[in-house]
């Protein structure tokens, strides 16, 4: 009964979305306050209904209600509760419902937190959100209904894929969807601005927090996915330039460009039409990613939704949403007047460079991802575009971004003195050069690129510190004054520093992967491997039962300098229902390096295959990503975001404070 309630709620939600899409839009153009206010109520009601719908599906999973087809296909009574819940979104229908839930949440958030927006803008933003929601709820109801019943109800479900029963993976989709769907808010703002025909500094200030939230979530989501791949897949790889990964990277790249160009719009009232385009682009890339991954069109065939009918529906949504937005852009954007001028060497110039490089990187990844599809579609040869391509095209583009990242914040607006800025960075340069020289001395000349990468990371980090030191006039003023200045700096400035520092940490982690060591051996109990100063001895391999699997667990003693420092337990698990096996790697993580062990097949007589890796500072990759997201969050706490639009107050009352 609950399920039918959920289905009904979703249908009602569709109608509310329609109302949300139409009424406020009309209200905004006719300046009807009542109609505009409907937007808010509709958004909240829509959210409540979708939440109810989602709760109904979750309830079915939690209670293992096998009369629901979706639950039968994707769950099993023996699954631990956490994974029963994450199983709700571990399949196509459920994940689309999660998508729609987050979309509704974004709409409700705009309704609740957008009180500082002018009425017309908010109404239009909610209307656009309503349109997107209508499309997706319709998609679910027509092609991907999770509420279908099955009769007679089987005794048990077909179980979820064992690899999905993992905490990292359970949380990865929600963060990722928050990122994708969150970009719909910036999209709505952009379309609303185009409809209104006005983009100004105030618009940029309102849009940026939303773009930041979506960016932070996407950063965490991508990092979670990468980290999951690292500890699951058995050889410690963390990025494969797979189409699915690229689908998440694309909106992240354009989202990064967006949060930077919005700064220019806000401060200098320029780069408006480009920023609007970026906002449209980010959501478009998220939509395109959904299409690619669920339509079966790419050589990334997925277990869910390889259904051309679904693919066609999503393509239709894509055409309507993106085509509509871009048409509006083509018509309205030329009228957006540019504002301040600036010299090429200036803060704006640096941000333009940042955008240029990130946009090119986005196109590069897009090209590499879609090229095989294009060639196949036009009947050309079937080719593959893998890491060798991306390493040669994407990585070189990121180098100037990092170089400029240290210099840019030191430049003034409008026109800046480059040599002065560079002089301030001499310490940073010296630091980076020192790192490079030390690295070459220790590592030799073979991993030169990696060492240069480390140098680049050092440069970026030093740039962050240098810029902060400059702002507080460290050592140029008495320390107490510097401290006062530091306390007075806006949060957004700290957010930037933290986020940029996070980038440096991430780049260092990536560069260091060239220094990893690998040992693969067949070991019988009692035998050893030596790697990077550690001695690993296989004590025994024992059988260990689990809730829905049976595992072979290797007990490996880790010694350093003859002293036993740890015991690591990599496993190979055989899941009884699925008859599949997965490897549970054993990882000893520290800020210095990871010791990574994986167990292969074998037996006590012929020996067990053991793979051991020593990966220096690999944890910095995910640490860096988390620091980046943290920087975004810090930025969000800046009180300037909470400042509202100037109301019609009598003269003499100050308007929005700076």
């Amino acid at each position: 009964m609950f399920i039918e309630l959920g289905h009904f709620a979703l249908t009602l939600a569709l109608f509310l979305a329609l109302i949300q899409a139409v009424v406020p839009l009309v209200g905004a153009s006719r300046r009807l306050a009542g109609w505009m206010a409907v937007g808010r109520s509709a958004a909240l009601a829509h959210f409540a209904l979708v939440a109810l719908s989602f709760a109904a599906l979750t309830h079915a999973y939690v209670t293992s209600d096998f009369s629901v087809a979706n639950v039968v296909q994707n769950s099993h009574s023996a699954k631990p509760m956490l994974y029963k819940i994450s199983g709700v979104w571990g399949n196509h229908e459920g994940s689309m419902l999660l998508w729609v839930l987050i979309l509704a949440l974004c709409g409700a958030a705009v309704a609740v937190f957008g009180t500082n927006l002018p009425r017309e803008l908010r109404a239009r933003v909610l209307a656009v959100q309503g349109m997107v929601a209508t499309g997706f709820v319709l998609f679910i109801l027509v092609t991907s209904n999770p509420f279908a019943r099955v009769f007679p109800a089987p005794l048990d479900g077909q179980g979820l894929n064992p690899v999905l029963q993992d905490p990292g993976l359970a949380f990865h989709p929600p963060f990722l969807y928050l990122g994708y769907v969150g970009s719909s808010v910036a999209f709505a703002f952009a379309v609303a601005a185009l409809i209104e025909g006005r983009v100004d500094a105030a618009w940029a200030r309102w849009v940026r927090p939303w773009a930041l939230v979506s960016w932070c979530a996407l950063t965490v989501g991508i990092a979670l996915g990468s980290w999951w791949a690292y500890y699951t897949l058995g050889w410690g790889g963390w990025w494969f330039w797979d189409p699915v990964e690229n689908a998440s990277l694309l909106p992240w790249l354009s989202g990064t460009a967006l949060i930077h160009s919005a700064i220019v719009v806000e401060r200098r009232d320029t780069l408006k039409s480009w920023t609007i385009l970026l906002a449209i682009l980010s959501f478009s890339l998220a939509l395109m990613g959904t299409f690619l991954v669920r339509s079966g069109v790419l050589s990334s065939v997925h277990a869910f939704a390889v259904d051309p009918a679904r693919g066609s529906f999503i393509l239709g949504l894509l055409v309507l949403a993106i085509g509509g937005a871009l048409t509006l852009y083509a018509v309205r954007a030329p009228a957006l007047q540019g504002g301040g001028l600036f010299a090429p060497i200036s803060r704006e110039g640096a941000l333009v460079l940042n955008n240029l490089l990130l946009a090119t990187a986005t196109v590069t990844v897009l090209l590499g991802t879609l090229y095989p599809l294009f060639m196949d579609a036009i009947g050309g040869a079937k080719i593959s575009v893998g890491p060798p391509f991306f390493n040669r095209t994407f990585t070189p583009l990121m180098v100037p971004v990092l170089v400029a990242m240290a210099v840019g914040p030191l430049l003034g607006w409008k026109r800046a003195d480059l040599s002065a800025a560079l002089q301030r960075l001499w310490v940073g340069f010296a630091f980076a050069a020192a790192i490079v020289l030390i690295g070459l001395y220790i590592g030799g000349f073979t991993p030169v690129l990696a060492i240069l990468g480390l140098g680049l990371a050092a440069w970026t980090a030093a740039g962050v510190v240098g810029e902060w030191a400059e702002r507080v006039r460290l050592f140029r003023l008495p320390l107490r004054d510097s401290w006062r200045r530091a306390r007075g700096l806006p949060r957004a400035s700290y957010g930037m520093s933290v986020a940029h520092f996070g980038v440096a940490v991430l780049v260092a982690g990536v560069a260091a992967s060239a220094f990893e060591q690998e040992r693969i051996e067949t070991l019988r109990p009692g035998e050893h491997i030596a790697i990077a100063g550690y001695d690993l001895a296989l004590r025994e391999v024992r059988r260990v039962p689990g809730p829905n699997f049976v595992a072979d667990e290797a007990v490996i003693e880790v010694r350093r300098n003859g002293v036993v420092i740890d015991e690591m337990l990599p496993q190979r698990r055989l899941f009884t229902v699925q008859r599949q096996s997965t490897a549970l790697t054993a990882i000893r993580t520290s800020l210095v390096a990871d010791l990574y062990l994986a167990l292969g097949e074998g037996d006590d007589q012929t020996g067990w295959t053991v793979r051991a890796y020593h990966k220096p500072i690999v944890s910095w990759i995910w640490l860096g990503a988390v620091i980046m997201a943290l920087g975004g969050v810090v930025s969000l706490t800046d009180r300037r975001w909470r400042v509202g639009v100037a109301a019609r107050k009598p003269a003499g009352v100050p308007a929005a404070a700076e």
Partner: protein
Amino acid sequence: MRTLLLLLLLMSPALMSPALAVQPDERLADPALETRARTLSRELRCVVCQNESIDESNAPLARDLRILLRQRLTAGDSDAQASAFLVARYGDFVLLRPPLRADTWLLWFGPFAVLLLGAGITVFALRRRAPASAAPLSAEEQARLDRLMREDAP
């Protein structure tokens, strides 16, 4: 989206019994040849897998190809010859680095072209914004301007 990747990875018949990729018994005795083999393997696609190289993949076919590759290298093939051996059988699909041919120019030169195009549009758009240099004022106009400026002063 990652969900999809791993669902696929696990569903693919290739990974039904994940041994781990390169096995100890596949490795060549000669470390230089083995390094060449590993490097080459990383650039060759496992054709039955979902975007993995034969170096990473657990699929039986990947193992066969790894062994075959090592045999070719031991027999004296150069890197290019060993790759060509596999390309002759599986087509360009097996190369993770797309070959540079007329039909892949757009792919390989695209990024650079986009960068140039983007830079060009940027310069064009920004240059347009620069105000035309005003014609110098005549003496009379300058006097008028001075008067107006003085009038405006509080």
